[in-house]
């Protein structure tokens, strides 16, 4: 009887999240469960579902009952909002456009940097092989592509036209386009293909831990993009499951010092300036732009660059001609 009663009391949250956030949420969920128990006396279970960001959004739209979503791209939460499960202005509901952590795109090169890669210009030299996942299918690839574009047009005399030429040279040096970030990492680190891997900073610690710390070196380019990792309450689901209060507290917990420390520990840059400063050794200063400022928001960037027949398709066609 008491067991059954306890289970009925215990709220159960489901967080539908993207692929690589598993380690972060293992720690963060435990911390929040303890915090919630202390504050309210209620025990809470948090289940995790991980998959490609867009695939997860699709599942939530189709009925995966996630109270909370954490994605690596605001477009995916927009898609859930358009399906009517949460308000369209979700970004305004939590600090920093609802993104408690972020990560820049960096270069990873092999030990000793044999091709002497220092910045974007070194990537388009003949004979350099670059590993980038497909921008059509991965957030990772989209960010890398946009960073290259922004770099090329910010150079003296640069414009959108020179950016196209730059991207053509860049993608001519890409031997394989993996479908996701993890696939690209495996191609570079395990199959040992390519001279440089473009990926999120939070992948770096994982690669070092798994494949050997001394085998790779990180190169920080003169300009790169910041990828924010937005979170949101799925209002309709939480209302139905009667978990809105706990889910909201869970989201707010992402901005506490304890949670920000957990992000930092897992290689994601915290938005809390003090925590970031405390981890300055792991997170050296980077010169970043964000997609909203530089490309007029994700929907516009998507339409201009990644839709069928848009810039990326033309660039790939030209690069492989």
């Amino acid at each position, binding site marked *: 009887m008491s067991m059954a009663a306890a289970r009925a009391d215990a709220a159960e949250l489901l967080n539908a999240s993207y*692929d690589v956030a598993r380690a972060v949420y293992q720690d963060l969920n435990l911390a929040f469960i303890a915090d919630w128990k202390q504050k309210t006396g209620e025990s809470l279970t948090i289940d*995790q*579902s*991980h998959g490609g960001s867009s695939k997860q959004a699709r599942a939530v*739209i*189709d*009925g*995966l*009952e996630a109270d909370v979503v954490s994605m690596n791209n605001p477009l995916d939460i927009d898609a859930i909002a358009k399906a009517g499960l949460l308000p369209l202005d979700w970004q305004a509901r939590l600090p920093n456009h609802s993104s408690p952590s972020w990560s820049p795109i960096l270069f990873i090169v092999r030990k000793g940097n044999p091709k002497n890669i220092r910045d974007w210009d070194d990537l388009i030299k003949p004979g350099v092989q670059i590993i980038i996942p497909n921008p059509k299918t991965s957030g990772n690839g989209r960010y890398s592509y946009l960073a290259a574009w922004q770099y090329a047009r910010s150079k003296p005399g640069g414009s959108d036209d020179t950016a196209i030429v730059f991207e053509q040279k860049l993608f001519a040096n890409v031997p394989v386009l993996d479908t996701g970030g*993890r696939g690209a990492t495996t191609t570079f680190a395990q199959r040992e293909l390519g001279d440089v891997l473009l990926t999120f900073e939070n992948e770096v610690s994982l690669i070092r831990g798994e494949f050997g710390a001394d085998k790779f070196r990180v190169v920080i380019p003169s300009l790169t993009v910041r990828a924010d990792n937005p979170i949101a309450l799925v209002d309709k689901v939480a209302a139905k499951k009667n978990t809105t209060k706990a889910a909201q507290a869970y989201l707010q917990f992402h901005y506490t010092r304890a949670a920000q420390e957990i992000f930092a520990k897992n290689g994601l840059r915290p938005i809390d300036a003090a925590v970031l400063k405390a981890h300055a050794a792991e997170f050296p200063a980077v010169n970043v732009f964000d997609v909203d400022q530089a490309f007029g928001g994700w929907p516009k960037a998507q339409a201009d660059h990644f839709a069928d027949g848009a810039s990326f398709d033309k660039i790939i066609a030209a690069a492989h001609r």
Partner: protein
Amino acid sequence: MTLSHSQSAQTLPFEPLMQRNAAITEARWVRATLTAIAILFLAGFLLLPLLSVFVTALSKGIGAYFASFGSAETQAAIKLTLLAAGIAVPANLVFGLSAAWAITKFEFRGKQFLMTLIDLPFSVSPVVAGLIYILVFGAQGWAGPWFSAHDIKVVFAVPGIVLATIFVTFPFIARELIPLMQELGTDDEQAALSLGASGWQTFWHVTLPNIKWGLLYGVLLCNARAMGEFGAVSVVSGHIRGLTNTMPLHIEILYNDYQFVPAFAVASLLALLALITLAAKSLLEWRFADQLAATRRH
């Protein structure tokens, strides 16, 4: 023995010294080359990958191998796979028997259509098999809102996984039995019925003993596919760790998390299942070859 042998030698004094199969007329080197190609092909495409699963699983020692099965998520995945197969196989056993019985023992309209329908899961891609359940039971699907209003979860929960598993394993038992029962014909059953046996007695004492080995083989194949299904289950799973991940899905997750030893350890379980299935099949064919052949030659 020696007597009969010498006798036969006496009665057949010009028995050829070497037995030759008259059908084989190719030169020796042609036969050797063809055999070598077949063996190389098998080794390269089947044996080597299978071996590499076990090599990777054991690459960090036997301790690490067994430790892989200690995690709660892995155990939940194994349990869910056993549950899905445990429901799908008996369901398809009943269905396969009924369908094969109906199709081979009776004449009715739409028989050909029923047979085509049974084959459908073979011709449909597993991804489509999963998507049809999303389209029916998903939140945007036509039955989804009703189920949601009644608080019944189908997709992204265990029922969806079981449904998808039943769908993809649908034809295995029926497909194994139909040709066998067609060859057997209805003579035995008619004899039993004319001697006064009831329908159930006829099935139990006449039909079942005739088809038992074929049936067992169908169950083995059905079970192997039920446990190994990836595509259809992946679409309806929702990938909730510890709740809706089956073994194949869990293997992918472990692999993507760079946990190679646990990933291949779980994979080795599935590979073992395949090997056991194969061994059981070979044993059946070897031990009961005469019976199988007898029933098939009727």
